[in-house]
């Protein structure tokens, strides 16, 4: 026991010393609200290298087995001399953890989704950019426009622009056409234990997205089905609204969900082997699942959440010029068109939609596939009204963003509530 006591003494001393000095580095720099850590206002000479964090499918370089024709990285490397090195992440959580390493000096940038972007902006991990550097901002679809866009809160804060818009897409309802009949039209199939007076026949084969941001999907559903709660924005929830959403999800987890997916390939596998028959999905999951399973996707009446990804540059980027050149490159219509065809999302550059149409006409002449561009499969490319209807991912914070003040629930509580939902 003497030795244990001595050991505890040593450790306590160390702890006090640690507490007295130094911070633990987990919070990034700046972040006192409003002031960007760095603003990039000019593009200089490329540094010859580029370190990116990206979602799978956003940085194809022709090495994916069976899809060697899809390559928008090698032309960039040839053009600018910046050799691209990509680290993939499957969740926004991973991206943020990676991005914060070394105070943001390891990676140059990331394809940030809305559930992470606001956190990175508030934490001073990403730098602001001067939109004048990128001529293609003129062609960005209206809702995402930095100046008067109606759906740009995930990358424009207090009028300051923090990145370049890339691809966007909905989280639609995917279902197995052979098992789920008639075709669903509402999210109630995933949230209600009883449908039309009978028990939900798909209980146990329903899937949900395994991430705290999914609470917004529940809130969005309650916005329509329980108007008394007064939910307006599913990411800005008061305590009462938040508790109702969490309760709905706890019920879903207990009675309806079979397995949820956080790895997108898990959902593809689930639909292919039949353990999942209906649930929320990304366009890329749909593209892969339909290769091996009879699936289709619909837009439910309550609406859909969605995501608009933005290339953001680190506040301490080791190769800022290469990153800025990459951001310009990925705003080009032809690049976004190629991504759109491969990934299934829509490019924020409106001209990319026509490019996709011509590509489909060339690749499949006479089949009329170009009309698909105006369907859910390609996220209704170019349709501003559709984009406005999406509840794009945002990082919830205490600031409600309207006259309610600072009474909304912060993301850290969303994460803890998610543990309660999943863990019990």
């Amino acid at each position, binding site marked *: 026991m003497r030795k*244990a006591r001595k050991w505890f003494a*040593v*450790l306590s001393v*160390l*702890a*006090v*010393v*640690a*507490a007295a000095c*130094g*911070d*633990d580095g*987990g*919070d990034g720099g700046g*972040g*006192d*609200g409003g002031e960007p850590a760095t603003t990039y206002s000019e593009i200089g000479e490329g540094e010859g290298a580029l370190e990116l964090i990206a979602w799978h499918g956003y940085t194809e370089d022709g090495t994916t087995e069976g899809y060697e024709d899809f390559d928008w990285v090698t032309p960039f490397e040839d053009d600018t001399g910046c050799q691209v090195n990509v680290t993939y992440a499957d*969740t*926004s*959580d*991973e991206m*943020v*953890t990676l991005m914060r390493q070394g105070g943001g000096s390891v990676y140059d940038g990331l394809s940030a989704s809305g*559930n*992470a972007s606001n*956190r990175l902006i*508030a*934490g001073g991990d990403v730098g602001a950019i001067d939109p004048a550097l990128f001529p293609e901002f003129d062609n960005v679809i209206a809702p995402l426009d930095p100046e008067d866009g109606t759906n740009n809160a995930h990358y424009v804060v207090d009028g300051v622009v923090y990145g370049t818009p890339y691809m966007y897409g909905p989280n639609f309802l995917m279902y197995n056409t052979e098992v789920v009949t008639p075709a669903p039209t509402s999210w109630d199939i995933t949230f209600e234990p009883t449908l039309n007076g009978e028990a939900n026949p798909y209980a146990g084969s329903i899937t949900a997205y395994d991430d*705290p941001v999914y609470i917004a999907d529940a809130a969005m559903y309650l916005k329509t089905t329980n108007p008394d709660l007064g939910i307006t924005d599913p990411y800005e929830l008061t305590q009462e609204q938040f508790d109702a959403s969490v309760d709905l999800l706890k019920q879903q987890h207990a009675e309806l969900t079979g*397995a*949820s997916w*956080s*790895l997108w390939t*898990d959902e593809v*596998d689930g639909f292919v*082997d*039949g*353990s999942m028959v209906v649930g929320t999905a990304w366009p890329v999951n749909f593209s892969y699942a339909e290769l091996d399973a009879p699936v289709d996707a619909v837009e439910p009446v309550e609406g859909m959440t969605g995501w608009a990804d933005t290339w953001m540059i680190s506040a301490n980027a080791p190769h800022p010029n290469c990153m800025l050149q990459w951001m310009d490159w990925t705003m080009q219509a032809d690049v976004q068109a190629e991504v759109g065809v491969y990934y299934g999302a829509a490019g924020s550059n409106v001209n990319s939609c026509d490019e996709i149409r011509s590509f489909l006409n060339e690749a499949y002449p006479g089949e009329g596939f170009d009309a698909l561009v105006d369907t859910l499969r390609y996220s209704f490319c170019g349709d501003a009204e559709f984009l406005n209807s999406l509840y794009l991912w945002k*990082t919830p*914070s*205490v600031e409600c963003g309207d006259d309610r003040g*600072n009474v909304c629930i*912060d*993301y*850290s*509580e*969303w*994460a*803890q509530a*998610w*543990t*309660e939902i*999943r*863990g*019990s």
Partner: protein
Amino acid sequence: MAVTAERGSASTVRRTSAFLFRHPRTKLSLSLGAPLAWFIVVYLGSLAVLFATAFWHLDVFTTEIVRGFTLDNFQELLENDVYRTITLRTMGIALAVTVTDIVLSFPLAYYAARLATPRMRNLLLIAVVLPLWANYLVRVFAWKTILTPSGFLNWLVELTGAGSLQLGRSNWSVWLTFVYLWLPFTLLPIYAALERIPGSFLEASNDLGAKGWTTFRSVVFPLILPGIVAGSIFSFSLTLGDYIAPELVGNTQFIGNVIYDNVGIAGNIPFAAAYAMVPVAIMAIYLLLAKRAGAFEAL
């Protein structure tokens, strides 16, 4: 000393080694200094900072970590049932994995230690250690593939006509995967302990009239208990802290997942650190008990 003097211009090596021999404390501090310094600075320092962080908290208004002493995190851990559920679940699976591994290890360990020829023994030991060289992730994914409804296990069960076994992603899958991953670590100390038992003990027991089971219970088991406990330390602690396998083959949360989930976007390092203290505390108790059982000598 005559020999040393005769060597005349004693080389610096000899003089240094002679000096060190006569000044054991210098030798001690030199030889222990480097590793201890490394250890204290890098490892203990990091742990101390993490320990301190558990008493700080995340300010939701600025999303920054405030370095003021507070017990909020621990309060949340105690009040909210789910953390207790997750902890108990993780400990339960860890225990189940440990027991299964011990049971699975025993036949092979006994065979290798007492029944096999030396050549066979070598081959068996290599056979046990070799899977460790197939990457951890690959082995987890192999089980993921085996356990899907269209995978090997279900195919095998259906082949025998016994219905179907669709484990998919579940606690059973997590248990099976962990049993597989940590089996070699549990096996080797048990093997070592069995091997150390002098044959004369067993003969004496036999001479005194004890049958197989009695010999095992009264002679073998008490002697190998430290080895069993030593092996169990690894299977228990490795299961307790793992977050990758539960994420890939499970459908619910374990201690490691909770810690990991609070570190990313949420940036709630204080809460993650507070919860991290739970497995640390559990392992500290486990290690103390293991030390009592003599496992440290069997390590």
